[in-house]
């Protein structure tokens, strides 16, 4: 399955033909001045694409990872295929380049995620921007710095050793002379390929490592920024698609009551196979047009629902047991066998999927909020049977994604409608469409069998994850006999990437289990973990979080508890401590049965280490946001479904964390200037659910093994 996907991808991917074959095109595209091109190095490419470079064929022109342009007026623009979705990489990447240019951050402008202008990129996911894109940006920035020094040394006829950059200018230390970048690039038409460049190490950073403010924040607080859904094009119509009543339904027939000729000009119904949509000049006529449609659909046979979900996911033979682990389990002093489940949850990006599509003869331009602009270009090329070179996908900075916008549904739909209407079409998914026709974080079942010695050393560990995913499936603890396996299932619902992927589910199961083992060994949960943990970086965050939290110092009070959890994923090390209280429900009406008590998360301390910190304030912001988002999945978020329909596809029915759910959130940043920077937008999410579950256990003696843990409040089970 996976191989087929990759091959299909290969077939349609045609990066840079227009650029790589004739570099003078860059000057046509960008204008005169100085252009620096950075080739992808083999290791970075393999890492980024998840496949071997050998598959790519040697005849292709070298692929480019990044390019930087210094215009004749000195303006510095750097190009990357990455997407800004709120994780603040527009700022952190500008910091990286400005650091190398010894310039203020305002000197550097980023052009991002535009298949017509930026280098090919697989997509913005997996926390890869900081570890792989930032170093490339730094290389091209460092090369630009050296090129400017060369130009100045030549102009001044001095030794280049006496020339340096600072404050956005090129300076001669001996004479005190200085030049702006534009003084050196005016009249130039120079393209340089970067081979090697010496980048500034973290210990010498002056701009990276500081809390540079978000570069485009002003346009967001004034409403000036145009998200995809805010764009307007001349003659643009609004579009919408007629959705089937359930997953898997097929269209039998459709009839429109829109009078012919349409009573409202420009209103049109478009049918193509199972696809039915409408365009209209405004949202109200569009609604009328869609409601005028009468359609009959075939129903698919009975489909699963929440009630039988976990049985469906675990269908099939039990995995064979591992003899070594069986033996270790047999000889363990204490054994524990437990099953955990996680529900499907929705990303709920506040900006739903949206696209604006515009055809110009056989050329297509689409603006859309996606994490994979080049992937969406491939999807469009395939769907419309046109070359990728005829398609341009542009991603305005987007109203969040969290792994939920890898696909191009809205782009495809807008393009199909625009083609029929022969006018630009904007299509914005409703919240209900986003809740129904996007994809979900996978549900899953996790089984763990383990054994420990009398004094609390883990000797056996067997971990099976059904469907939810393999991320962070391996235990970071030191266990003599261990195995971890992922078993894919046929998911009843469309599922995909989500912030942290399955690391949240796997940490929830593992760290809940660890707490139960600590109880069996009669050890404090912190002590038990440290006893079984050699990894220094993980120990460091665990101890930092415990210290800040005051672990072990809280008094025993009824219905209050503390819990901790730790883990590692994507090069980030996280430990989370949580304090919870079981509180009476706010609302007790006179005529209704009293609502169950609620789990109130009162305080959360997160210690995080991801190598050298690039932007402390933005890192804290990401950690706080991860904690806040994690609260939903931990306590109450769950997609309810039955027989091919989503039962809670609205914000009034699907609860997301709000101000009332906000605990006191404290963060400890462990800054390791001696280590390369890892991504940080995902991993801080993984510790919250198990820390809260462990705190509930301490408060009540109840072990909750299903996410969400308290969808309708805290229900005591025997």
């Amino acid at each position, binding site marked *: 399955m996976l191989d087929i996907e990759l091959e299909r991808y290969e077939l349609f991917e045609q990066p840079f033909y227009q650029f790589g074959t004739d570099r003078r095109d860059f000057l046509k595209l960008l204008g005169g001045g100085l252009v620096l091109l950075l080739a992808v190095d083999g290791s970075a490419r393999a890492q980024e694409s998840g496949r071997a470079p050998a598959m790519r064929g040697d005849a292709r022109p070298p692929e480019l990872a990044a390019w930087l342009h210094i215009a004749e007026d000195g303006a510095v623009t750097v190009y990357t295929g990455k997407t800004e*979705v*709120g*994780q*603040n990489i527009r700022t952190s990447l500008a910091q990286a380049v400005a650091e190398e240019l010894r310039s203020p951050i305002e000197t550097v402008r980023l052009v991002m995620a535009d298949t017509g202008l930026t280098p090919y990129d697989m997509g913005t996911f997996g926390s890869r921007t900081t570890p792989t894109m930032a170093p490339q940006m730094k290389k091209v920035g460092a090369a630009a710095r050296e090129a400017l020094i060369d130009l100045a040394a030549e102009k001044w006829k001095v030794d280049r050793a006496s020339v340096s950059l600072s404050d956005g200018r090129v300076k001669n230390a001996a004479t005190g002379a200085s030049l702006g970048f534009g003084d050196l690039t005016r009249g130039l038409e120079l393209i340089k390929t970067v081979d090697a460049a010496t980048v500034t190490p973290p210990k010498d950073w002056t701009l990276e490592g500081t*809390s540079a*403010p*978000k570069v485009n*924040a*002003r346009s*967001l*607080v*004034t*409403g*000036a*920024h*145009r*998200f995809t*859904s*805010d764009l*307007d094009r001349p003659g643009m119509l*609004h579009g919408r698609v007629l959705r089937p009543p359930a997953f898997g339904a097929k269209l039998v027939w459709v009839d429109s009551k829109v009078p012919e000729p349409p009573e409202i000009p420009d209103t049109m119904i478009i049918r193509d196979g199972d696809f039915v949509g409408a365009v209209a000049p*405004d*949202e*109200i006529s569009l609604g009328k047009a869609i409601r005028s449609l009468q359609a009959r659909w075939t129903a698919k046979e009975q489909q699963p629902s929440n009630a039988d979900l976990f049985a469906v996911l675990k269908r099939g033979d039990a995995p064979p047991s591992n003899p070594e682990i069986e033996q270790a389990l047999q000889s363990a002093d204490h054994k524990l066998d437990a099953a955990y489940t996680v529900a499907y949850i929705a990303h*709920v*990006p*506040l*900006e*739903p999927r949206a696209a604006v599509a515009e055809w110009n003869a056989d050329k297509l331009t689409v603006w859309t909020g996606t994490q994979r602009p080049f992937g969406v270009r491939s999807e469009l090329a395939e769907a419309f049977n046109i070359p990728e070179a005829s398609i341009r996908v542009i991603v305005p*900075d*987007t*109203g*969040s994604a*969290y792994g939920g916008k890898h696909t191009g549904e809205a782009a495809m739909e807008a393009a199909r409608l625009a083609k029929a209407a022969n006018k630009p079409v904007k299509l*914005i998914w*409703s*919240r209900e469409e986003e809740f129904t026709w996007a994809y979900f974080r996978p549900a899953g079942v996790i089984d763990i069998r383990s054994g420990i010695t009398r004094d609390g050393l883990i000797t056996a560990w067997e971990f099976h994850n059904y469907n939810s995913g393999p991320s962070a499936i391996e235990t970071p603890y030191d266990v003599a006999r261990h195995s971890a396996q992922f078993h894919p299932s046929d998911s009843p619902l469309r599922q995909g990437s989500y912030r942290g992927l399955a690391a949240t589910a796997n940490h929830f199961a593992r760290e809940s289990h660890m707490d139960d083992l600590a109880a069996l060994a009669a050890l404090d949960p912190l002590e038990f973990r440290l006893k079984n943990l050699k990894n220094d970086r993980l120990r460091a965050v665990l101890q930092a979080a415990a210290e800040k939290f005051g672990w072990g110092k809280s008094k025993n009070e009824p219905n209050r508890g503390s819990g901790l959890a730790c883990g590692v994923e994507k090069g980030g090390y996280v430990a989370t401590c949580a304090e919870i209280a079981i509180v009476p429900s706010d609302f007790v009406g006179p005529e209704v049965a009293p609502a169950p008590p609620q789990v109130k998360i009162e305080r959360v301390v997160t210690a995080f280490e991801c190598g050298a910190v690039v932007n402390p*304030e*933005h890192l804290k*912001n*990401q950690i*706080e*946001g*991860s*904690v*806040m*988002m994690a609260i939903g999945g931990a306590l109450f978020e769950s997609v309810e479904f039955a027989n091919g329909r989503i039962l809670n596809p*609205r*914000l*009034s029915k699907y609860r*997301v*964390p*709000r*101000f*009332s759910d*906000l605990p006191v*959130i404290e963060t400890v940043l462990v800054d390791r200037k001696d280590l390369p920077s890892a991504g940080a937008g995902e991993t801080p999410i993984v510790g919250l659910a198990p820390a809260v579950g462990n705190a509930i256990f301490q408060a009540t003696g109840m072990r909750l093994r299903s996410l969400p843990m308290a969808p309708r409040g805290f229900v005591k089970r025997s």
Partner: protein
Amino acid sequence: MELVLNQKHYRIVLDPNRMLLWVLRDEFSLTGAKYGCGEGQCGACTVLIDGAPVRSCITRVSSVAGKQITTIEGLEQNGRLHPVQQAFLDADALQCGYCTPGMILASVGLLQKTSQPGEPEIRRALQGNVCRCGTYPRIIAAVQLAAQQMAAGAPHA
């Protein structure tokens, strides 16, 4: 129909049943008010009507004819940000920024009613506004900062 938008008067022929959100966005290009849910649950579409926050996605345009409508585009005066806008910048109270206009307008509405709200009041006033990126603690800090700035006589108070 007469609409008073950011202190400017307009006469326009409109289907009175249209929701204010789409009139602002599609007829006046005031796209700061965002669609988030269409049922008044997320607050991304918040605008001020006679100074009070309302959900424009469920407000018929006919019901606000002649009233003072303030959108995010109307807060900045002479190139100078409203203290609440400035405080959101200073507190780094945003990530993707999609909820930000609604959050700012709901906060402005709160501060017009209560000049020095405590944290519980801020939470209550903003309970209907969702920030999926989870910048809630920073938004509270921003509202408190703005309240201080406005008490100290920052413009727009």
